[in-house]
């Protein structure tokens, strides 16, 4: 697996690019995925050299014996340097120790199967045991169809673990990025104590095409985008990518050691 450090070395200063091309700053949600992946995100958000990735041990899973599923995952693992569509670990953000999780939509649209759900839960449980805040950057097409009912049940599993973490006093921050839909939007993505979103990110339960087919009409401009969700009361703040670290650090500072107040 390519380490964060290796990847960092291989990259040039992306912010310089962004400054030279300001339209990208305005519409990060619709930038091609290959230009900004989960590892870029971690690099941008965490203090340099502080990210330590969790390495949970999983067997190969294919509960429906779905044709080609295992091969597909194997190929994606090599391409993406992650075992499934979520990367989790500990880090510091502006000096604040935090558990961070980032979903990787290059891996089967970050759909949620057993391994993703379990990784999320284990990372969150680590945060709970160690009294750390938890930040997740969500992006997902929804449930991992290839795992059938077992993927659906991840919604209940992850939501239960979030509930326990929050009830135990933990700070749970979600950052909704493009796109966050289906079973992920209807579970841990929308349970944040604080909910941030990236500009223009598509966020919703049903996909726009399904809705259009159901109601038989075109959807209005901006429907299900982050701004639309905020207008309807489901997003605390829309934060641009270049301001993300600063805003997260501010939230961590404002909450301080939340566990001490239990």
């Amino acid at each position, binding site marked *: 697996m390519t380490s964060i450090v290796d990847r960092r070395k291989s990259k040039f200063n992306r912010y310089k690019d962004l400054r030279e091309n300001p339209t990208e700053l305005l519409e990060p949600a619709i930038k091609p995925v290959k230009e900004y992946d989960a590892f870029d995100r971690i690099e941008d958000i965490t203090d340099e050299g502080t990210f330590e990735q969790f390495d949970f*041990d*999983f*067997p190969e*899973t294919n*509960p*429906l014996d*779905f044709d080609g599923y295992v091969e597909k995952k194997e190929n994606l693992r090599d391409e993406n340097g992650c075992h499934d569509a979520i990367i989790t670990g500990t880090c510091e953000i502006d000096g604040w120790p935090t558990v961070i999780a980032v979903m990787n939509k290059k891996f089967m649209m970050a759909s949620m199967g*057993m*391994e993703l*759900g*379990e990784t999320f*839960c284990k990372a969150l449980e680590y945060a709970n045991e160690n009294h750390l805040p938890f930040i997740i950057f969500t992006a997902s097409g929804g*449930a991992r*169809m*290839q*795992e*059938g*009912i*077992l*993927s*659906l*049940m991840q*919604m*209940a*599993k992850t*939501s*239960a*673990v*979030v*509930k*326990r973490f929050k*009830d135990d006093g933990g700070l749970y921050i979600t950052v909704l990025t493009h796109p966050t*839909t*289906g*079973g992920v*939007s*209807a*579970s*841990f*993505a*929308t*349970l944040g104590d604080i909910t941030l979103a990236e500009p223009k990110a598509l*966020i*919703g*339960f*049903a*996909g726009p095409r*399904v*809705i259009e087919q*159901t*109601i038989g009409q075109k*959807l209005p401009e901006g*429907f*299900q985008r982050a701004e*639309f969700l905020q207008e*309807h*009361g*489901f997003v605390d703040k829309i934060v641009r990518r270049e301001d993300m670290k600063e805003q997260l650090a501010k939230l961590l500072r404002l909450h301080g050691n939340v566990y001490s107040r239990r």
Partner: protein
Amino acid sequence: MSAIEKVLIARDKDRPKITDYIDNLFTDFFEQKGDFLGKEDGSIYGGIARFHGRPVTVLGHRKGKTVEENMACNFGMPGPEGYRKALRIMKQAEKFNRPIITFVDTPGAYPGLEAEMYGQAQAIAANLAEMSALKVPVISIVTGEGSSGGALGIAVANKVYMLENAIYSVLSPEGFASILWHDSARRDEAAEVMKLTAKDLYGFGVIDGIISEADLMAAVDTKIKSALKELDKLSGQELADARYDKFRYFDEALLATENQKEMEVV
């Protein structure tokens, strides 16, 4: 019987509906309407009733029996207000220490414009989270179609049962075929691949039992009675913990590596 035959039986419009279960198995039903946040949703039907004399909260998806009812209930596809109504009456059940019994029968949560606008995803997520910690017995029975998050949104229960011809799945077979093969006409094949029958789910350890449909109402009655008897032995906190553990660890065996399995044996 093939999987698609089960799907068609599960969807049969003449199959017993929540109103039949309430009429046959409960007395003194008092319907509660509204999410008390500004909306009412006919696709979730529920309230307070007695089960063998004991006050319980009973609720479920309502598809309706006539065309007029179908329309009024949106064919059993709730919007966020339906899930919020369900949560409201479940939290009330917890307050008054009433067991909760839910009947699951939905093609899914409604994929509509207003449903999205008012937070379909958030409403379902809230139910999943809150139900996991309820301190009263929760029993869910999938009676027909248990489709997607729309079904699970009222099915985070201590005991989950399925009728022998019910289905429970991540999506409809049509949707599954459309997403994975870009061809919704391959639904029969999808139904087979998805493993969505009661027997399949029991095999996965996702449900606790299968209810025979030979003498349906009597069988459901017996199952609820025996489940309550078992759950009554637990305190409120124990009920919440048991439910949490059930959903947290249902796939533990599937996710154990060979190493971990060996260690357990040692």
